[in-house]
């Protein structure tokens, strides 16, 4: 049994960690946090040069053709460093949707540009409050044009390529939904940046007005493709969450070792130690569930839907837990803007929502477990 990453993959992780430690220290994250930039352009360029953007894209489409396990280890480091770049929307959502459903021409057009950092991509799915559901999609596609509004769209204000979930019928079935591909530069779509919980990652409202769009994948297959994309993104995001959980735990541990109160390091008080031990437990459970997700993703196993939901729930819980208790360990200092704790707290809670809420994924997990049991 080898339920672990290979030495090469671990080396890639170390390489990514080193790169991010140098190019993406907290003060670089703060440039975006403080609203001075919409994302870290230099870092994004560095990602392309390091080959992070195309690691799972096949060589024939300009990528490294490595695979999803390699992408998982990079995602972990992206999460650990709070990298303020549109990595998840471009790589986990847009590139995955293209690889799953794109025609050869579409892949030839877009994937090399994603790998090179030239194109930022995203998926426009949500239309206001609510979780992923075909019923919630009102934006209409007819005669090759889209009309309607999407929000929130992750990195929507900076995206060049937008994959849009649109309604093409009204029978009440999943097959009412189809996917479309929009070149943002071609006009017909207006982006409005929205303020949000985690300013290190942009959110936008996109309004489509007679916007030209080309179909992505078979008409009526949209929901099926979205479900698959969300499962893949759930696993990859879980690695970001695991990386963030570990970092929040380390920050809390380090502070507990350094901070003296009542004449002793606060880490010697059981009330503090036990809080940190429980954070370690959450982070460990999340990591193990994420590894199972990585295995299912990399082998395209039939277990992927269940593994993805488990990874998603476990990683969401762990990051929220570690994010909030890291602040608690820091006491008053943890509640200041100056300390970095709130950046992890914000990211933890934003990632918890991006692909649909915890309760949505809980529901999904039980459905999928029942399906397996019935089979």
């Amino acid at each position, binding site marked *: 049994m080898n*339920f672990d990453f290979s030495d090469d993959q671990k080396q890639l992780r170390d390489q990514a960690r080193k790169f991010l430690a140098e190019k993406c220290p907290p003060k670089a994250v703060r440039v975006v946090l403080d609203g001075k930039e919409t994302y870290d352009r230099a870092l994004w360029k560095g990602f392309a040069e390091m080959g992070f953007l195309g690691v799972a894209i096949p060589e024939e489409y300009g990528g490294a053709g490595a695979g999803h396990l390699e992408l998982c280890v990079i995602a972990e480091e992206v999460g650990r460093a709070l990298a303020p770049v549109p990595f998840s929307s471009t790589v986990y959502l847009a590139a995955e949707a293209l690889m799953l459903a794109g025609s050869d021409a579409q892949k030839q057009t877009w994937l090399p540009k994603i790998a090179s950092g030239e194109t930022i991509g995203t998926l426009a799915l949500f239309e206001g409050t609510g979780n992923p559901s075909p019923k919630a999609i009102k934006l209409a596609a007819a005669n090759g044009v889209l009309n309607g509004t999407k929000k929130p769209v992750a990195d929507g204000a900076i995206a060049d390529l937008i994959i849009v979930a649109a309604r093409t019928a009204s029978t009440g079935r999943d097959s009412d939904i189809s996917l479309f591909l929009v070149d943002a530069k071609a006009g017909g779509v207006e982006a409005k940046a929205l303020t949000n919980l985690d300013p290190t990652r942009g959110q936008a409202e996109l309004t489509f007005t007679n916007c030209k769009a080309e179909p992505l994948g078979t008409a009526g297959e949209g929901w099926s493709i979205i479900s698959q994309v969300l499962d893949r993104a759930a696993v990859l995001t879980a690695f970001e969450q695991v990386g963030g959980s570990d970092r929040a735990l380390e920050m809390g541990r380090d502070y507990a070792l350094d901070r003296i109160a009542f004449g002793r390091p606060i880490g010697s008080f059981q009330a503090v130690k036990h809080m940190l031990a429980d954070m370690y437990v959450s982070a*460990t459970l999340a990591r193990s569930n994420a590894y199972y997700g990585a*295995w299912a993703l990399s082998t395209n196993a039939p277990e992927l839907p269940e593994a993805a939901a488990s990874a998603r729930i476990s990683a969401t819980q762990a990051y929220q837990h570690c994010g909030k208790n890291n602040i608690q360990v820091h006491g008053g200092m943890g509640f200041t803007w100056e300390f970095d704790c709130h950046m992890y707290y914000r990211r933890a809670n934003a990632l918890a929502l991006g692909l649909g809420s915890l309760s949505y994924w809980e529901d999904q997990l039980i459905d999928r477990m029942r399906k397996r049991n019935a089979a």
Partner: protein
Amino acid sequence: MNFDDTPQEAAFRAEARAWIAANAPKQYEDELRASSLGRTALKNANILEVAKAWQKKKADAGWACLHWPKEYGGRGASPIERVIWQQEEGPFGKLSAMFIIGHGMCGPTVMAYASEEHKRQYLPPLASGEKVWCQLFSEPAGGSDVAGLRTRAEKRGDEWVINGQKIWTSGAHYSDYGILLTRTDPTVPKHKGLTMFFLDMKSPGVEVRPIKQASGHSDFNEVYFTDVVIPDSQRLGAVNDGWNVALTTLMNERMSIGAGVATGFPELFDFCSNLVLDDRPAIEDRNVRSKLANWAVKASGLKYTSMRAISALSKGERPGPENSIGKLVAGSMVQDVASYALDLQGAAGVLSGPEADVAGKFQAMLLRAPGTRVEGGTDEIMRNIIAERVLGLPGDIRVDKDLPFNQVPTKGRA
């Protein structure tokens, strides 16, 4: 990343599987499988006899204590082979419960500290289950604080005379031998005045009294020592070095990674799938689903944490510290799962007996769970271990560390 055996592992697994298929006591398989939590018992057979027979059969064929050297009754197998064996033994592994302490803790201590002659004499019958061993550490005055124990050992010529009391001794009532931690010098700080022995549990002056537990069962005992004589040749380690010997014992606590820990989740999932609430299966209820999902990811998280440890063994590496979370997570989870399964039944959840065997099953879980959270290191001790050994946080400030043991306070408010 994969879940596949190496060719050598596959060959070992095939050999183990074939032998188990041909030799295991299959007539008990269903019963053993069903008794996943609470207590393992057999309706029409004495479980101790069945367990001993299975252990002897394994030993005769070279499948007992796989990781022990052959000359002491083992197989000289690698850690991963031991895990594979546990996976293949499956429900029959539950029959090993009565040997866990002897094989997992007493045996390694004897192996590390006894004379060669004693090792050859005592270890093979321990491996084969013909002789059962128990571990006599905890006392009324020393549970989590094991080094606070007060049972005295006094030297008289070539012998030691033991007086005192042990408690929470699992299996003392059916054990043939025990390893015994005693105080040999009360005038020095507590960790420095301890000495370890092994003794025959049939020695004159040893009295075993079962403890009736909160669950109503009796798995543990109090053991009283009144002028019990132990020859000096049965001392394990140097006089007053018993704490280091005890650490050897405690570090050898059973590696349960192959067998996996019971969480109660599969039982709860089945239960919620079959229970009807408001005219539909309980599992279709929003609240039920949310609870189930939360426990599902804990159960799978533990499962894949074990897989990571097994993978380390497979590569010949030491597993990381992550496996230390198992008991801490599973202990309170079983308790919560059991309580929730009863809650779903409303007032009828209180009933047990033949007409309410489902409620009874979860009640057994509920009543056993507090023990799991205490034995072998309380939840609080487990958190200390994670915080100190894994995260590197400082140990507690110990006010009795440098005090002579006989000056350590013994009473609180009273």
